[in-house]
C-alpha cells in the first residue's frame, strides 16, 4: 500500500496544485498554494527515498495492469534521489517566485504551468515505461514553452521559436526511436527491454541507440546539439530560468543514464566511446562559450552545457566509481546551478540589469549577496570544501583509474576555465563601480520581498556547503544508486516480479 501510493503521489500532488493554483490565480492565494504544494511534493519525495533506501527499488503498476502491459512507475535510488532534488528545487523556486513573478504573469497562470512542469519532471524520473517517458517529456515541453514566453517580451519570442523548434526535433527522434525499438523487441517496459535486448540483433540495437542518443542529447544539451540552450535560457523571468537550468537538461541526462545502463549495453565499446568524445567536447565548447559571453545569465547558460559534459563523462566511463561521480555531479549541479540563476535574479533586481557592462558595485553595496554568489560559483568550479570539489574529484579519479590521462586533464582544465569566467562575473558585476554611479543595496528591496528572494538562495547555499563538509552520506547514496544502475537485477525484479512469468 505505501509504495503503491508513494510512487504516483509526487506526480499527482503537483498536478492537483496546478489545478488549485489556476483556479485561484487572480489573488495572492495562488502563489501560496504553489509554495504549499511544492513543500508537499518535497516531503513525499523524501518519504519515497527513505522507503527505497530501506527496502530497495519499488514499483507500482498503474490501474493494476501487470507489467510489461501496463504503465509501471519504478523508483530505484537514482529516481528517488532525483525526485527529492526536484522537490528541493521546486520549493526554492516557488518561494522565490512569490517575489519575482508579477501579477500579470500570475494571472496568465504562471504557478499552474510551473507545477505542471514539476509534475512532468517527477513523472519522467519515476516512469518505468519508454512511451510514458515520451509523454512526460511532452508534458514538460508544453509547460516549458508556456513559461518561456510568459511575459511576452520581444526577445522571448525570438528565444521561444528556437527553443520550441529544436526541442520538437528531439522529441520526434525520440518517438521514431520508440517505434523502431518496439518493432525490434516487442516491448517498451524498461525492465522488460533490459531482459529482451541481449536476445536481438546487436547491430540493430546500436542503430536504435543512436536515435535515442541524439534525441536525449538535444534535451541534455550536449555538443553539438546544445545551441538552443544559450539562445533561450537568459530570456524568461529569473525564477523560470532557474528551474529550467536546474532541472530540464538534467532530465535528458537522467534518461540517457537510464537507457545506456539498462537497455543499450550490447556494444559499450562503441556507444560509450562516442559518449566519451561527446562529453569532452561538451565540457570544452561549453566553457569556451562562457568565456566569450558578457551577460550574467548567458555565461551561466554556457556553464550548464560544460557541466553536462562531466555527467556524460561519468556515464561514458561506465566504471562503478565514474557512475558514482555522475550521480553525485547530477545532484550537486542542480542545486548549484539553480542557485546561481537565483542570485543573478537578485543582482538584476537591485543593480538594474544582467549585462555585465551595465552593472557593478554589488560587492560594495551588497556584500552578503556577493558571499552568496561565491559559494555556488566556487562550488561549480570545484573548490574544496564545497560540493563541486567532491563531484569533480570522483570523476577525475575515475578517469585516472582507467588511465585516461587526457580526459582527466580536460576535466581539470575546464574547471580552471570555469573559474576564469566566474572571475569575469565577479570583477564586472561585483567589484567594478556601477557605470550609472549608484550603489545597489539589498535594503532597496522591501522586507517581504527580500525574505522571499534570499531565503531560497541561503538554503541552497547551505546545502552546497553541507554536501561539501559531510559528503559521506551523499556519496554512500550515490554509490548505492550506481550499484543499482550497473547491476539492474533488483530493478528488473521489482518491476516484473521475482519469477519472470511472462516469457
Amino acid at each position, binding site marked *: 500500500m505505501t509504495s503503491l501510493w508513494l510512487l504516483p503521489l509526487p506526480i499527482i500532488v503537483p498536478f492537483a496544485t496546478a489545478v488549485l493554483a489556476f483556479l485561484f490565480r487572480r489573488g495572492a492565494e495562488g502563489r501560496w498554494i504553489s509554495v504549499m504544494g511544492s513543500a508537499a511534493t518535497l516531503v513525499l519525495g523524501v518519504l519515497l527515498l527513505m522507503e527505497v533506501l530501506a527496502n530497495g527499488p519499488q514499483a507500482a503498476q498503474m490501474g493494476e495492469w501487470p507489467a510489461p502491459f501496463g504503465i509501471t512507475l519504478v523508483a530505484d535510488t537514482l529516481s528517488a534521489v532525483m525526485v527529492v532534488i526536484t522537490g528541493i528545487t521546486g520549493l526554492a523556486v516557488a518561494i522565490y517566485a512569490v517575489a519575482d513573478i508579477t501579477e500579470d504573469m500570475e494571472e496568465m497562470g504562471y504557478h499552474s504551468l510551473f507545477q505542471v512542469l514539476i509534475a512532468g519532471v517527477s513523472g519522467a524520473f519515476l516512469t518505468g515505461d519508454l512511451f510514458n517517458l515520451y509523454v512526460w517529456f511532452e508534458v514538460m515541453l*508544453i509547460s516549458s514553452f508556456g513559461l518561456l514566453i510568459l511575459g511576452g517580451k520581444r526577445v522571448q*519570442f525570438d528565444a*521561444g521559436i528556437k527553443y520550441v523548434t529544436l526541442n520538437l526535433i528531439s522529441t520526434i527522434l525520440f518517438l521514431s526511436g520508440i517505434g523502431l525499438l518496439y*518493432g525490434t523487441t516487442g516491448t517498451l517496459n524498461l525492465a522488460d527491454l533490459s531482459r529482451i535486448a541481449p536476445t536481438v540483433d546487436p547491430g540493430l540495437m546500436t542503430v536504435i541507440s543512436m536515435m535515442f542518443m541524439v534525441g536525449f542529447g538535444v534535451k541534455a544539451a550536449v555538443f553539438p546539439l546544445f545551441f538552443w540552450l*544559450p539562445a533561450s535560457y537568459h530570456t524568461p523571468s529569473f525564477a523560470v530560468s532557474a528551474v529550467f537550468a536546474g532541472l530540464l537538461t538534467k532530465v535528458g541526462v537522467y534518461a540517457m543514464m537510464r537507457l545506456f545502463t539498462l537497455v543499450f549495453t550490447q556494444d559499450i565499446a562503441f556507444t560509450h566511446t562516442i559518449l566519451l568524445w561527446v562529453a569532452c567536447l561538451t565540457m570544452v565548447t561549453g566553457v569556451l562559450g562562457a568565456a566569450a559571453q558578457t551577460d550574467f545569465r548567458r555565461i551561466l547558460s554556457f556553464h550548464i552545457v560544460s557541466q553536462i559534459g562531466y555527467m556524460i563523462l561519468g556515464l561514458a566511463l561506465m566504471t562503478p566509481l565514474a557512475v558514482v561521480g555522475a550521480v553525485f555531479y547530477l545532484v550537486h549541479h542542480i542545486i548549484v546551478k539553480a542557485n546561481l540563476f537565483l542570485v543573478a535574479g537578485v543582482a538584476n533586481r537591485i543593480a538594474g540589469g544582467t549585462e555585465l557592462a551595465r552593472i557593478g558595485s554589488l560587492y560594495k553595496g551588497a556584500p552578503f549577496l556577493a558571499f552568496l554568489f561565491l559559494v555556488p560559483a566556487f562550488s561549480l568550479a570545484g573548490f574544496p570544501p564545497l560540493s563541486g570539489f567532491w563531484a569533480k574529484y570522483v570523476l577525475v579519479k575515475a578517469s585516472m583509474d582507467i588511465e585516461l590521462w587526457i580526459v582527466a586533464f580536460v576535466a581539470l582544465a575546464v574547471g580552471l576555465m570555469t573559474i576564469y569566467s566566474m572571475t569575469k562575473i565577479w570583477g564586472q558585476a561585483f567589484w567594478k563601480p556601477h557605470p550609472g554611479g549608484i550603489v545597489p543595496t539589498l535594503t532597496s528591496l522591501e522586507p517581504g520581498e527580500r525574505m522571499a528572494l534570499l531565503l531560497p538562495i541561503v538554503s541552497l547555499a547551505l546545502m552546497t556547503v553541507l554536501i561539501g563538509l559531510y559528503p559521506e552520506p551523499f556519496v554512500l547514496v550515490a554509490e548505492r544508486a550506481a550499484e543499482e544502475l550497473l547491476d539492474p537485477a533488483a530493478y528488473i525484479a521489482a518491476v516484473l516480479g521475482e519469477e519472470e512469468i511472462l516469457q
Partner: protein
Amino acid sequence: MEVFVAIMVGALVTASVYLMLARNVLRFLFGLVLLSNAANLVIFAAGGLTPEAPPLIAPGANAPPEGVANALPQALVLTAIVIGFGLFAFALTLVYRGYQNLGTLDTDEMRLAEPVEAEKT
C-alpha cells in the same frame, strides 16, 4: 506492405529535411510537421501491417486470430498524433506571435536573443 511504408517514410523525411533547411520559420515548421508524421508512420509500421486482418477479438474468443497486426502501436500513434497536434498548434501560434513582434520570419534576422557583437555597441 512494410516496404512501401518504409519508402513513404523515407520520402517524407527527405521532403521535411528539404523544408527544414529553409530560412523561413514557417517552412521549417511545415518540415517539422512532415517529420512528425514520418515518425508516426514508423511506429505504425513497427506493429506490423496486415491488410484485411483487423486486430479484433471475435465474441467468445480469448485471443485474436493469428497474423493480425499488433494493436498497441496504433494506440501509441494515436497518442503521439494528439500530442503532436497540441504542440504544433502551439508552435504555429508562437511563430505567428513572433512574426507580429519581430516583423520577420527569416531565421537569419532573428538575432534579438543572441545579438551579433558589432550590433551591440
